[in-house]
């Protein structure tokens, strides 16, 4: 088992390295001299020279990558062009807010998707199944940024029940668990939960349907097991795959919340990214994407390990 963990962790190392290479190159695919992507256009000449030296911009690309990676590994993600401040503290609080939002959306989307999907899979061809399929297709087809606006129109503009912007009543970027903050998270969380709900519904419908079609289900029925006994078998067989899908979806929620955060002005990584794009603040863009994708790589590894833990056939 320990060997498995070690081997899989080892396999994600080159991936992590390649991901950081991609993020490093983002600065270089941006049009113009990379120095202009790192420094404001009005930076004095000596600062330009100093930064060129520090980043090794006059050296060949592989060396530059080495220097950049070294800095990143030591926690130096660079400075923002727009504010001139260190990126990490801002990114840190934004990351926390995104995590809160993603977790809230997952807590809505996953259980609902699991419920709809399992019921649909268990009763293939029934009206419940058809309703769940329509719901799932609608969930994955809806432009969620538009859905966010619809929610705002209905619940904020027309009914005036819930706030439409920000993460907290006082406008600060720090989230806490109380009613004021909760009311702010309701609309963005519901909006964000629609896609994972659709996907989890679809996947679980497939998984449960497939399991119920397997020969061993006939064996179990032949042993006289009642519904409760059967459910235990279905759950244990479905768990590894279901977990994998949910893990990936959690990652997509983290990385994909940019549109919803923009609609609701939620002070997370998405909003940070949006502002960075708007101000062409490439260092912030780079740092945010690096951190989010590293998170995703780690999540993938965790999902892999959890799967191996749950499925005896994958332990090797």
């Amino acid at each position, binding site marked *: 088992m320990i060997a498995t963990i070690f081997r899989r962790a080892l396999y994600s190392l080159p991936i992590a390295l390649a991901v950081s290479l991609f993020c490093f190159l983002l600065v270089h695919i941006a049009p113009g001299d990379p120095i202009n992507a790192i420094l404001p256009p009005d930076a004095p000449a000596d600062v330009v020279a100093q930064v060129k030296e520090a980043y090794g911009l006059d050296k060949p690309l592989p060396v530059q990558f080495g220097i950049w990676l070294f800095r990143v590994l030591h926690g130096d993600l660079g400075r923002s062009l727009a504010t001139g401040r260190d990126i990490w503290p801002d990114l840190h609080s934004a990351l926390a807010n995104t995590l809160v939002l993603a977790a809230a959306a997952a807590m809505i989307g996953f259980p609902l998707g699991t419920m709809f999907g399992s019921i649909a899979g268990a009763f293939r061809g029934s009206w419940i199944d058809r309703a769940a399929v329509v719901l799932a297709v609608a969930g994955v087809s809806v432009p969620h940024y538009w859905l966010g606006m619809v929610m705002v129109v209905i619940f904020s503009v027309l009914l005036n029940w819930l706030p439409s912007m920000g993460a907290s009543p006082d406008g600060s970027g720090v989230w806490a668990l109380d009613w004021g903050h909760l009311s702010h998270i309701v609309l963005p969380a519901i909006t964000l939960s629609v896609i994972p709900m659709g996907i989890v519904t679809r996947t679980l419908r497939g998984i449960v349907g497939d399991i119920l079609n*397997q*020969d*061993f289900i*006939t*064996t*179990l*029925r*032949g*042993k*006289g*097991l*009642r519904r409760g*006994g059967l459910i235990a*078998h279905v759950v*244990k*067989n479905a768990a590894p795959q279901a977990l994998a899908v949910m893990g990936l979806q959690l990652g997509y929620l983290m990385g994909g919340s940019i549109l919803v955060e923009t609609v609701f002005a939620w002070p997370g990584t998405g909003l940070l990214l949006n502002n960075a794009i708007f101000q062409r603040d490439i260092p912030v863009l780079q740092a945010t994407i690096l951190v989010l994708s590293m998170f995703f790589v780690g999540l993938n590894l965790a999902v892999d390990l959890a799967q191996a833990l*749950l*499925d*005896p*056939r994958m332990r090797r």
Partner: protein
Amino acid sequence: MSNLVHVRDLTVKFVSRDRTVHAVNGVDFDLDQGEVLCILGESGSGKSVTLRALMRLNPPTRTVMTGTLNVGGQDIITASDREIESIRGRSVAMVFQEPMTALDPVFTIGQQIRETVIRHEGVSKADAHKRALELLDLVQIPSAERRLAAYPHELSGGLRQRAMIAIALSCRPKLLLADEPTTALDATVQIQILLLLRRLQRELGMGVIFVTHDLGVAGEIADRIAVMYAGRFVEEGAVREVMRHAKHPYTQGLLGATVHEGMRGKRLTTIIGSPPNLANLPTGCAFAPRCPSADAACLEAVPGLDGAFGAHRARCIHQPAEAMA
């Protein structure tokens, strides 16, 4: 009515939106306690469906059953789901063809035996575990304690099938149903499983219904053989009678087509054509289109089984001269 199994005019249909498949079309037989009946037939003959009907294991939403079907005094067709569930695995148990897919891959062998015992006898987990150990011993699986903790994929094909049999025997059933249990196994393993089943049947005094396509396997284990074609028994009788003095042209054809020792250099007799479409059966004898001795009379009505129950009888109006296989 003291038979363990009593079946009269059993039909099983699978109904879907597009078509109706007549899988079983009037099967009659009795089985006594301690008797072994082999249902012999080719793919699509309805032999597995008949077997599953005895436990009502065919897909519940699409299956329509009619006739009389009585197992251990319980009417299977009219019983409630709850009654069926308490019969399954307790008084009637089944062994399947492919143990790899018939066992749950993410539960250990031990868990899969214990849950059956606990389900039907409500014993403690420790007692169920003790029973599981005894059962592995009974089916001759060595180092039982270790094997109980193993998952199906960790066992060889032969051990998996033994584990499957242990599960089936876990509540000492009166009737064991076996659906081609040796077909997926290697030759040297097949004979081990056959001999094991024969010994267990004798020791436990079970009635056994054994479905196979292999005449040789039937010859090793059966007391009686029923030959099935297009959802009907076309011939039924004691194993020696059927194998040596087959009455029905289909059985004779099957015997002639089965390759065995001493046939080298001879031309094999074959049955021309292929089996009928079960969604669209002919009105008369279903075998008539392939039968060498068929005539117009064969197409008029389905021939009945001649003779009394338990006797050697065939569903043919011509009953051609007895032929040696």
